[in-house]
């Protein structure tokens, strides 16, 4: 079982990213769970969302305490809040940041595998909006190979087209693919 923790701020779409990842994995025949941290929900406040992906039935409903993968959607968290708590020693951290992985390692003190991607920059140039949550999944998929990138694309088209129209959906899909290619 792979456990993923996503750090974002209320309103940044960490919960959506966690759900999308789970749903796309489910379409590939995986057993899944995704849930946000159920604290007081406040826009702008740091929050966490979780995804579990497994080949076998997921029985536990306990909180994720030692994630395999940590995804940081908000770059301002680095050096300010503890995003590495409980992460497995051979775990992977992927950060929305313009900085290099080494710099992030230095600021967080995490010695494992770190990747960075300018998901905010990519999202702004592709969609005009600073919505890095779904593009970050492109980076996650590149690094971890959890599911094919096409699965997320398909899901985004299904979920977004009616809501935001074909043009903006296409821009989001492009952002996912750019994050997939550009992750360091």
């Amino acid at each position: 079982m792979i456990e993923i923790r996503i750090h974002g701020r209320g309103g940044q779409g960490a919960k959506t990213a966690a759900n999308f990842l789970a749903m796309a994995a489910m379409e590939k025949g995986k057993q899944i769970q995704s849930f946000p941290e159920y604290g007081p929900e406040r826009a702008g406040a740091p929050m966490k969302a979780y995804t579990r992906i497994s080949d076998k039935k997921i029985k536990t409903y306990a909180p994720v305490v030692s994630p395999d993968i940590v995804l940081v959607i908000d770059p301002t968290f680095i050096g300010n809040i503890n995003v590495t708590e409980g992460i497995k020693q051979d775990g992977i951290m992927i950060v929305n940041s313009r900085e290099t992985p080494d710099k992030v390692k230095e600021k967080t003190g995490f010695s494992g595998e770190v990747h960075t991607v300018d998901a905010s920059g990519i999202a702004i140039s592709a969609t005009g909006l600073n919505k890095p949550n779904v593009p970050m999944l492109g980076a996650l998929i590149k690094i971890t190979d959890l599911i094919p990138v096409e699965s997320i694309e398909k899901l985004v088209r299904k979920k977004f087209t009616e809501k935001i129209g074909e043009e903006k959906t296409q821009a989001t899909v492009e952002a996912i693919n750019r994050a997939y290619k550009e992750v360091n």
Partner: protein
Amino acid sequence: MSKKKAMTGAEAAATAMKQINPDVVAAYPITPQTPVVMKFSEFVNDGEVDTEMIRVESEHSAMSACVGASAAGARAMTATASAGLALMWEVVGVASGSRLPIVMNVVNRALSAPINIHCDHSDSMGARDLSWIQLYSEDAQEAYENTILAVKLAEHPEVQLPAMVSQDGFITSHGVQNVTVYSTDKIKKFLGERKPIKALLDVDDPVTMGPLQLQDYYFETKKQQDNAMEKARQVYIDTGKELSKITGNDYGFVEAYNLDSAEYVIVTISSTAGTVKSVIDKMDNPKIGLLKIRMFRPFPYEEVARLLEDKKAVAILDRSESFGADAPIYGEVKNALYNAKSHPKLQSYIFGLGGRDIYEKDIENVFESLLKEDIEDKKRYIGVRE
């Protein structure tokens, strides 16, 4: 054809309601309403059901409208949580006393005060003596299937009692999981139409419902409610066997996990039962097991006694309090064992009130204490600061 989907527990319960296609759903549309009704109202809006959706001004009115609809002969459903169930209290008893087979999804959440919106079982456990059948769901799949089963069980001519189907607030209701949704045609065939024995709108057979019964008949009515509850046991098993032909799943009063070889057992309900299973798998000790209670009302005394009487020590994990008394599940398990041929040692634990997280480590610690037969004659509290 069944379909595999990713959905929350609340969506799973709403999906069951969609397939049930009740005549009437009356619900309070804002907090503390659950996403069950939010999702179901989308089905109404999209024309996927032909339910008459009544948006009422309070939970008290929600249950009142369900009582009216059900008395008229309709299949009526609702959903609520926490303070919502507390507010409808008076009419919850009217539903059962009038023998109306209303089915209500309860997303288990804490009661005020202090104000708290998170998971515990205080709401429905508080309603345990109101003569409603109570089923507790471990996951979204069970919430979906229990909702379907509850309708047929509640409406059975020998039962005619309302039923609550509970799932854990947030943990299950808001968490996305795998759910297998069975063919709507098969579910509709399984349920059929509601055939009320007596209905207010049956002009050929006029009846009075909910009249005054003082010293003369009230007592008989209450005794009949208990008789119906007793009959619900066998009807539940029979209905479960029938549903099993569609789902392939078992519907016992309880679920035993690793119990045959176990000497040390945790008893609990709802999502925490899943966490206990996960810990049992990890600890890989044949001496530990789980007894999950699925049906809390009527309570399966015989089965619990039979499955626990030869065990060495049992920990009962309650997610609600009975202040100054035994916690609800603990008390029932202790009762069940009074007439058993032997008694395991029992330890009561209270956990998770107001949504306090329950970690696998906590469950491991409970098993470790059981294995040492470290038992005391008072409640223990998991993760509470002294």
